[in-house]
């Protein structure tokens, strides 16, 4: 079996399975070590509690910009909101592929992002042989909101983060662990192979199948290890952490 077939039919589904097991393990641990508290809350009106909820989520964003605007802009806005999320979840090729595995995912087609700026109408060829024509809601926005531009932004972001982590490690920062040094190159590999494959570059079916195989394999590796890493944050850590903080500070203490 060649790499592409292995990646599509074995590795990626296996990675999803591992992901599910890992995610369940991580979430169950929270249940097992949970200990209830006995607190007398400060009575506050519903308005205060809702405002507190909004501020709990906004505070770190405001403080991030005040603390280090460049880092906040590049890390939070460019890398997360502008590049990675749309690229991973909305690129037409990805929607088509994920839809094959999880059919309801197709609901996102109206938000699909084309691979390049040439047209807002998508002609998608995926390894599973599906051809889709879609019109997205983005219209002229696709001149910036397209795979090419997002891949460039993501590449710059990832390289920046990678260099930053190596520099921090060299400066003796404890927070940079070996995993951090491995995962950024892995992300870079995912983006670059995907981009090259999507553009059929280098030309030739062999290259295409090899690069796409590598793209899916590296993505599978990332998906499989994700529940065991800090990258689980967007599914769990972020929401649990902020909601716990809201309970602790706003509901309990009335801040």
């Amino acid at each position, binding site marked *: 079996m060649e790499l592409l077939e292995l990646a599509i039919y074995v590795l990626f589904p296996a990675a999803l399975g591992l992901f599910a097991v890992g995610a369940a393990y*991580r979430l169950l*641990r*929270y*249940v097992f*070590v*949970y*200990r209830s*508290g*006995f*607190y*007398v809350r*400060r009575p506050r009106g519903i308005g205060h509690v809702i405002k507190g909820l909004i*501020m*709990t989520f906004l*505070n*770190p*964003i405001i*403080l*991030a910009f*005040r*603390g*280090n605007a460049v*880092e*906040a802009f590049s*890390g939070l806005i460019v890398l997360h909101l502008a590049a990675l999320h749309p690229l991973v979840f909305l690129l037409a090729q990805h929607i088509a592929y994920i839809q094959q595995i999880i059919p309801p995912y197709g609901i996102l087609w109206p938000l699909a992002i084309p691979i390049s700026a040439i047209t807002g109408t998508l002609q998608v060829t995926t390894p599973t042989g599906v051809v889709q024509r879609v019109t997205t809601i983005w219209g002229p926005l696709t001149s910036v909101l397209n795979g090419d531009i997002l891949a460039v932004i993501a590449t710059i972001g990832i390289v920046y983060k990678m260099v930053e982590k190596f520099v921090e490690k060299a*400066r*003796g*920062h*404890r*927070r*940079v*662990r*070996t*995993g*951090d040094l491995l995962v950024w190159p892995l992300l870079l590999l995912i983006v670059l192979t995907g981009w090259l494959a999507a553009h059929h570059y280098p030309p030739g079916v062999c290259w295409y199948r090899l690069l796409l195989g590598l793209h899916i394999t590296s993505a599978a590796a990332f998906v499989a290890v994700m529940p*065991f890493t*800090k990258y*689980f*944050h967007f599914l*769990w*850590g*972020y929401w*649990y*952490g*902020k*909601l*716990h*903080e*809201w309970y*602790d*500070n706003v509901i*309990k*203490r*009335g*801040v």
Partner: protein
Amino acid sequence: MTTIYPRVPTVLPPAHLPVVRLNSVTLHYMESCVGCGNCAPWCPYYYVDEEFAPVEKAELVRQILRRRYTAAGILAGRVVGARMPRTEEELWELLRSAYRCADCGFCYIACMYGIDSGAMMMALRQMLYEAGVAPTIMKVLARFERDGLYKGHPAVKSAWEAFLKEAEAPVGRRGARVLLAVTLMDITLTRDAVLNTIKVLKRVGEDFTLPEVPFGVRPPFGAIAGDVKAQRDTIKDLVAYAESLSPRLAVFIDGGYVYPQFRFEATNILRRPLGFQVLHVIELFAEYVREGRLRLKPLGIRVAWHDPCHLARRGGVIEEPREVLRKFTDYRDLPGHGERSWCCSGGAGIIFLSEEFYRRVSQLLGTDITAGVSPRESAFLRETEEALRRAMLKKVKDVRKSGVQMLVTACPACIETLRAGLKFHKVDVGVEHISNLVAKALE
């Protein structure tokens, strides 16, 4: 004479470092940090050295937890950022980091993932304390309080009696509406504020009582020393005493950790509700103002409120002091205020870590506690003092910018820290406890 020397005099072999138990919150703090550094600029100690950024300090605890509680940590150790300190030297290194955190909570609200690095540092203090590594003054005062030694100590007794004589207020009266929970630290560091609080209570005709003996040293001292048993025993003892007097309110003059410990943590420690409600004196004053019982004449001075972290960010008391101060002063906020106030940097016991404080406590207790101090601890104390001076620069800058004549606050540790710090950095702004100012403005 009763010895007040530490319960754990020797250092345990580090292999036995007692690791705190994991719960869902510490589990989250252990596994969700992404190392973004968003917390760093809001920690006063980050400006002393980057290694004291909240994320870097808390990573030390994460390393220990990973080593103890994760399969990867046990199997792969350092490769996955898991590490158990091995030598006494390392434990002292950890102690240094543990005391570069005032548990102010600013990093908590700045973190995208709600990670409370201050709580992690308090967990570190607990582990170190159990292993026998803690500053002498912390061990002495935690024990002194836990065992109730302060109740019969001759020097404390005479200081308390002299205070009661001056206060001329009811003592140990059952059924009074308010128990004014005056601590030994209150009458030592902010005696004027205690006497002025009593003056205000008398003026409004409050039905109140003082305790028969000090309401702890600065209870529960174990909470900041890392002595969990002392924390629990002290709370148990003092809550039982307060309940024996059946007040409706227990009111604290200290707006430091004492307030949230009794207001929020005591019920969790005792696993039951308290027989009284806990207030800080500023909440009581605000209540008087709202009811029209407290009339204050304008003093015409420009003041700002310094939010003690444990009263505001960790206590939820933010509006009340402003409500009262606006009645009789030319009030303005500091640039960083309320939930986003800069910490004075001396909280969680850091202000006590100086040779001068060791001497003052020795004098108070009539026992030379400096006798048990090793050269290593002396060096630690000097370094901590120096770090505090640098850490508070953000606050000093804010005070300078505000153009106020006086800083008003409510925590003895903040008052001590700010007075010394502003003087050191040549900022001519006074620092007063709110009770002093209110008493001055009484009509």
